[in-house]
């Protein structure tokens, strides 16, 4: 890693993430958007879906928990667990967009129905433990998202699947949950729970160690006997399906490592979001999952970045004072040359230590006449307004500087990660046009 002097922006050296080649590449079959909560994962996934479809791909977007308006913008406000075609997609290359919202319980039910004969399926679906597990377990959503991804991929109706990841406790949960659920469902513990039901009575005691009986005893005490019975019934009913769960969890995992898969880590230039992003980058590398790059949402910019925050603030304060003290007073750069550093610090000192003896205004015919032309009230308004513009700019520059610092920290850790920045929008996205605009910003490069 090269040392960077404080003056150079760290991102200058960072490779730019170019998303158009990624979505145009027919070899790209799955794009996974992951990142902390509230960074715009779902919006990014939807915008990429729209863009890819309008560039000729047959796309399905799998969203997990979209905001209502965003879902409506794609016409999927009903939660029916099936991809629906999105109307209004433009483009001449025969591209199509389908979108769906994950219904985790429905997905779980469907697995049960598909893999067990009707009687057994009903027994499982009616089991209280199953009902809680399918609706509530902290990892079910993650597991079902991966399950659904596998299903969509297997149907082979789409040549690109864009998937959003669940709003987990930790952004990494969706990688771990399927394994966790899988290993629970055919793990040691569940086999032990099942053993009494299978072998029955004293015969089973032969291979049941002390720990086992103590364990069921303790769990029984802790959770109540009925609960344990529900679990045992559930487990017995699910027996034939266990192998399947594990196999499928493994298959999905492999799918995520396959060359056709690309991960996009989504973040905002905030400390927490980028910290999660860094964890994610490291984790993906450890799991040998292909990272395409980082999408940095809601980045602030300024077309007037040459004017520093300090200078803008000082000038604003100068204007305010001028208004109170003397309408005509003010320090004018008469030479027309850009302000030099010493002048800048003069301004800053002046701003922090009022009252300040203002530089005596020397006669400047051109400006005098201009000021005379304006109405007195107008002039005050303009000064007020200009001070406001400067303050706003100072605030903007402060945000820019902070975002830059946060990004530099990430870049220092992961200089190899390609980044695309998405400029902050003043409002939320409500329709396809909004998603299209995000898509443009996503691929605008720098």
């Amino acid at each position, binding site marked *: 890693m090269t040392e960077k002097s404080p003056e150079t922006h760290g991102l200058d050296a960072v490779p730019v993430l170019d998303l158009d080649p990624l979505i145009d590449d027919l070899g790209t079959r799955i794009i996974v958007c992951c990142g*902390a909560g*509230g*960074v715009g994962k779902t919006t990014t996934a939807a915008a990429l879906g729209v863009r890819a479809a309008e560039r000729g791909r047959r796309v399905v977007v799998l969203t997990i928990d979209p*905001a209502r*308006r*965003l879902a409506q913008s794609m016409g999927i406000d009903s939660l029916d667990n099936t991809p629906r075609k999105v109307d209004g997609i433009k483009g001449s290359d025969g591209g199509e967009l389908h979108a769906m919202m994950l219904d985790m319980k429905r997905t779980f039910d469907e697995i049960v129905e598909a893999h067990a004969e009707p009687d057994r399926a009903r027994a499982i679906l009616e089991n*209280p433990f199953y009902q*809680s*597990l399918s609706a*509530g*377990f*902290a*990892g079910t959503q993650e597991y079902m998202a991966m399950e659904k991804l596998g299903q969509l991929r297997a149907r082979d109706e789409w040549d690109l699947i864009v998937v959003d990841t669940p*709003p987990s*406790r930790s952004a990494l949960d969706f990688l771990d949950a399927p394994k966790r659920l899988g*290993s*629970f469902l055919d793990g*040691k*513990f569940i086999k032990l729970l099942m053993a009494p039901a299978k072998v029955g009575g004293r015969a089973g005691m032969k291979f049941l160690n002390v720990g086992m009986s103590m*364990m069921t005893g*303790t*769990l*029984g*005490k*802790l*959770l*109540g*006997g009925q*609960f344990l019975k529900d679990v045992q019934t559930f487990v017995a009913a699910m027996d034939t399906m266990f192998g399947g769960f594990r196999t499928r969890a493994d298959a999905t995992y492999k799918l995520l490592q396959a060359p056709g898969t690309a991960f996009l880590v989504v973040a905002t230039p*905030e400390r927490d*979001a980028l*910290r999660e992003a860094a964890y994610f980058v490291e984790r993906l590398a450890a799991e040998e999952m292909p990272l395409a790059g980082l999408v940095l949402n809601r980045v602030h910019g*300024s077309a007037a970045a040459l*004017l520093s925050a300090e200078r*803008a603030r000082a*000038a604003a304060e*100068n204007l305010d004072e*001028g208004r109170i003290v003397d309408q005509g007073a*003010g320090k*004018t*750069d008469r030479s*027309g*040359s850009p*302000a030099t550093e010493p002048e800048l610090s003069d301004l800053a000192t002046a701003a922090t230590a009022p009252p300040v003896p203002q530089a005596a205004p020397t006669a400047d015919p051109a*400006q005098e006449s201009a000021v005379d032309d304006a109405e007195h009230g107008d002039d005050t*308004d*303009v000064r007020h*307004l*200009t001070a*406001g*513009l*400067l*303050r*706003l700019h100072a*605030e*903007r520059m402060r945000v820019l500087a*902070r975002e830059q610092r*946060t990004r530099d920290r990430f870049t220092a850790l992961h200089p190899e990660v390609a980044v695309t920045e998405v400029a902050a929008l*003043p*409002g939320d996205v409500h329709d396809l046009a909004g998603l299209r605009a995000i898509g443009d910003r996503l691929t605008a490069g720098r």
Partner: protein
Amino acid sequence: MSRLQVVSGKGGTGKTTVAAALALALATEGKRTLLVEVEGRQGIAQLFETEALPYEERKIAVAPGGGEVYALAIDAERALLDYLQMFYKLGTAGRALKKLGAIDFATTIAPGVRDVLLTGKACEAVRRREKHGGHTYDHVVMDAPPTGRITRFLNVNDEVAGLARIGPIHNQAQAVMRVLKSPETAVHLVTLLEEMPVQETADGIAELRAAELPVGRVVVNMVRPHVLDEAAVRAASGDHRDAIARTLASVGVAGGTALVEPLLDQASEHARRVELERAQRAVLDAIGVPSYELPFLGDGADIAGLYRLAKELRKQGVGA
């Protein structure tokens, strides 16, 4: 003020920061607060720039006026083992359970058990007393799961009582529910003045109310100062460009109209945002829940920012 303050909010709204600021604000003159986190993210440690918190209550900050803030990262697995130890004197058997995957099962898979353990630990801290009889902590502030999951998380009774119909977990769930549904508890939702978080807040409040959980305040976070309004910007973008350029020049800012243009663009963006915020504020007002307002911290939420937010909360009546 309720003794258990639960802080939730959509991801990205700054709920951890708000929870920490609230814990600081409540630690007025000699009071002691406990800030707990339940999601294993070590967000508190990061916020206070300390090393990762162990499963142990430790002092993390001193509030102006001598109050103290303690912090605890609750770990469901450790809470369960503690619990087993306390009630069943399990000792080494706990390790055996762990080996078999039983602890894993209870804390991550068995629906609701994890939540009972986490909320249970927080409620224990609320009820705990010192030898002299006073409460150990004047307030417990919980950095809770996000809005989308908060009702389910707190409503452990429904979840667990239905499954574990008898036994200590059942009883624990009942005891926790009594605290959570009482005026001892207040659930606050952090939001930004943006559409999605406001919508989630409205939905979250409806869910909390339906579950009879006590809604505290809406905390409107990251409120930006309204430097310019729409009218000012409209006035500016007309024929005043030259006048603005001259005014800028008069205070030594060169650049002329070429600089004025981007400044005006920024202003109209700001004005649009102000309008959107006004609309979202109206949505929040319609919900009829009192609110706190916290300013946007231009330099990010560092420790100094935290103290500033705490001061702001005190100004608005926290800890009074």
